[in-house]
C-alpha cells in the first residue's frame, strides 16, 4: 500500500445488506495523482464520500498525514487539508462566480479574519483565467453551463489550498480543450505537492493525468497499477466488458 498522505485500511460501507465497499485498502503520497476507476456502481463515489466525511464508514480506518479521520465530519476533514468536488456540482443563484471562488479561500478561517474586509486578489484572477471563467466572473454561478460549473468547483477547491484534492468526475460535460487545460493545471498543482484522487470514466484524461490507478469492482479493489497496465489486466477488462477478451484487442 503506497502513500503516507492518505491511507485507507480495510474500509467498508454497506447500504442495508448491499456491501458497497468491502475492506478496501490503498494509499496516496503527497504530489501523487491517483485515478479511482471502476464500472458504474462499483463504489467509487461512495469511497470518495467516506474518505471526505460525507458518509460514515462501517469499518476500517482512514488516516490523513497520520491523523485518524475515520468518521470525522466533512468540515473537520477539510480542516486537515482534504477538499472534494461533486459529480453534479450545484451552484448558488445569488452569488457570482467570483464570490463563489472567493468563498473557497475562507472555509477554515477564524471568525475574526472572516469579519475583516477582503479584496479579490491576483490569485483569484489567475484561477479565473486558468479555468477560462474570466468572462463569466460576474454572472450568477448558477447561470454557468454544466461544464463550467465543473470547472468552477475544481477552481474553488484549489482556492482553498488543499493538500489532497478529491475530484468526482471533473471532466464530465467539459469541452475537450478545457479538459486538456485541466490536465495542465492539475499537474502544476501536483508539482507543488498537492495529491489528487480523481474518480473519472474518461480514460484519455486518466492516462494523461494519473501515475497510478486503483480499480474497484463491486466494492473490491481488483487492480492497483499504472494506467498503461490496465488493458493487460484480465480482471479489469472483465469488469468493464463483462467477459474475458483476447489480449491486445481492447483499448480502455
Amino acid at each position, binding site marked *: 500500500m503506497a502513500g503516507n498522505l492518505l491511507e485507507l485500511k480495510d474500509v467498508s460501507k454497506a447500504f442495508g445488506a448491499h456491501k458497497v465497499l468491502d475492506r478496501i485498502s490503498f494509499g496516496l503520497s503527497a504530489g501523487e495523482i491517483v485515478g479511482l476507476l471502476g464500472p458504474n456502481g462499483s463504489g467509487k463515489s461512495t469511497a470518495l464520500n467516506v474518505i471526505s466525511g460525507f458518509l460514515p464508514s462501517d469499518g476500517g480506518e482512514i488516516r490523513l498525514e497520520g491523523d485518524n479521520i475515520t468518521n470525522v465530519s*466533512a468540515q473537520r476533514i477539510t480542516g486537515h487539508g482534504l477538499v472534494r468536488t461533486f459529480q453534479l456540482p450545484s451552484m448558488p443563484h445569488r452569488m*457570482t462566480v467570483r*464570490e463563489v471562488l472567493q468563498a473557497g479561500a*475562507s472555509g*477554515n478561517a477564524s471568525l475574526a479574519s*472572516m469579519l475583516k474586509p477582503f479584496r479579490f486578489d491576483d490569485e483569484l484572477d489567475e484561477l479565473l483565467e486558468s479555468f477560462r471563467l474570466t468572462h463569466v466572473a460576474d454572472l450568477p454561478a448558477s447561470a454557468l453551463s454544466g461544464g463550467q460549473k465543473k470547472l468552477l468547483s475544481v477552481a*474553488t477547491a484549489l482556492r482553498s489550498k488543499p493538500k489532497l484534492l478529491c475530484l468526482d468526475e471533473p471532466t464530465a460535460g467539459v469541452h475537450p480543450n478545457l479538459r486538456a487545460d485541466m490536465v495542465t493545471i492539475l499537474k502544476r498543482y501536483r508539482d507543488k505537492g498537492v495529491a489528487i484522487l480523481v474518480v473519472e470514466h474518461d480514460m484519455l484524461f486518466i492516462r494523461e493525468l494519473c501515475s497510478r490507478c486503483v480499480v474497484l469492482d463491486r466494492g473490491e479493489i481488483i487492480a492497483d497499477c499504472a494506467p498503461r497496465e490496465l488493458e493487460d489486466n484480465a480482471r479489469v477488462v472483465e469488469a468493464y466488458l463483462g467477459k474475458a477478451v483476447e489480449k491486445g484487442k481492447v483499448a480502455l
Partner: protein
Amino acid sequence: MFDFFIHVASIACLYGVLALSLNLQAGFTGLVNFGLIALFGCGTYGAALASGMGWHPLLGLPAGIAMAALLGLFYARLGRKLSSDYWGIATLSIAEIIRISITNEQALTGGAQGISGLPLLFAGLKPYDGMARLALYVVVLALVWLFCQRLVKSAFGLSMKLMREEPQLARSLGYDLDRIRRVVMLVSSAIAAFAGFLYAHYLTFVGPDQLVSPETFLIWSMVIIGGVANNRGVIAGAFLMQFAMAYVPFIKDALELPTDFVAAARLIIVGGGLLAFLLWRPKGLFPEKVGGSNGR
C-alpha cells in the same frame, strides 16, 4: 397630525431594526425563523424587569440582550438537528410557549396585565421629546443598517450566502455551518432585543399581547415586500407597511366606512401584500443585488 407622523415614523424605525434582524437570519442565511418576536420580547421584558426591580433603566438593555442571546443560541442549537422547515415550526412553537408562559406567570412579568410605568425616553424635552426620540431611532436604525451591511459584505457574509444556497458545497469547503448559524443568531438576536428595549421605553408598557405570532408575520411581510436579502429594501418595507397600516383609519373616515373596516384592512394589507408579492414579485420592491460583496 404631525405628532401622529412622528409616532408612526418612530415605530417604523423600530420595525426597521427588527426587519434587519430577520433579514440577517432569513434573507442572507436562509434561517426561516417564525419565532422572531420572542427575541424582540427578550428586549421588552429586559427593560420591564429592570424597571420592576428598581434597577437603572439602561441595565435593562444588557439584561434583554443576554436573554435574547440565550434564546438565539437555543434556536441555533435546534437547527443542528432540524431541517429548515421543521426548524421554522420549532421556533414558532417556542415563541408561543414563551408568550403563554409569560401570560400565566405573575410575579416577574405581571401576567396578562404586563408591566407598565416604564420611563419614557427624553420625557423632559417636551414638547420636542417625540422628535428627540425619533432622531435617536433614526440614528439606531442607521447604525444597525451600517453594521448589517458591513457583515454581509465581508467574507463571513459570503459564508452566510453559501450556507443559504449550497450547504453541501459550504461543508465541502470547510465551513462550520453550526458556527455560522450560532453567530448569525447571536448577532441578530441582540439586534432584535435592542429594538425591543427601545420599543418598551417608547410605549412605557410591556405585555404578552405584544408577542403574538402575527407580529412575527408582520415583520416577515416587511422583509418580503421590501426585498429579501436587501438591507435597504427591508427598511423601505418596514416604513411602507407601517405607514400603510397606520393610515388605514384616515381612509376609513374619508370613505365613511364602518369601524370593522380598519382591522380587516390591516389583515388584508399584511396577508394580501405577502401573497401578492410572493406570487408576482417574490424578490420584493428592492431585489437582492447579486455580486454585492466587498471584494471590489
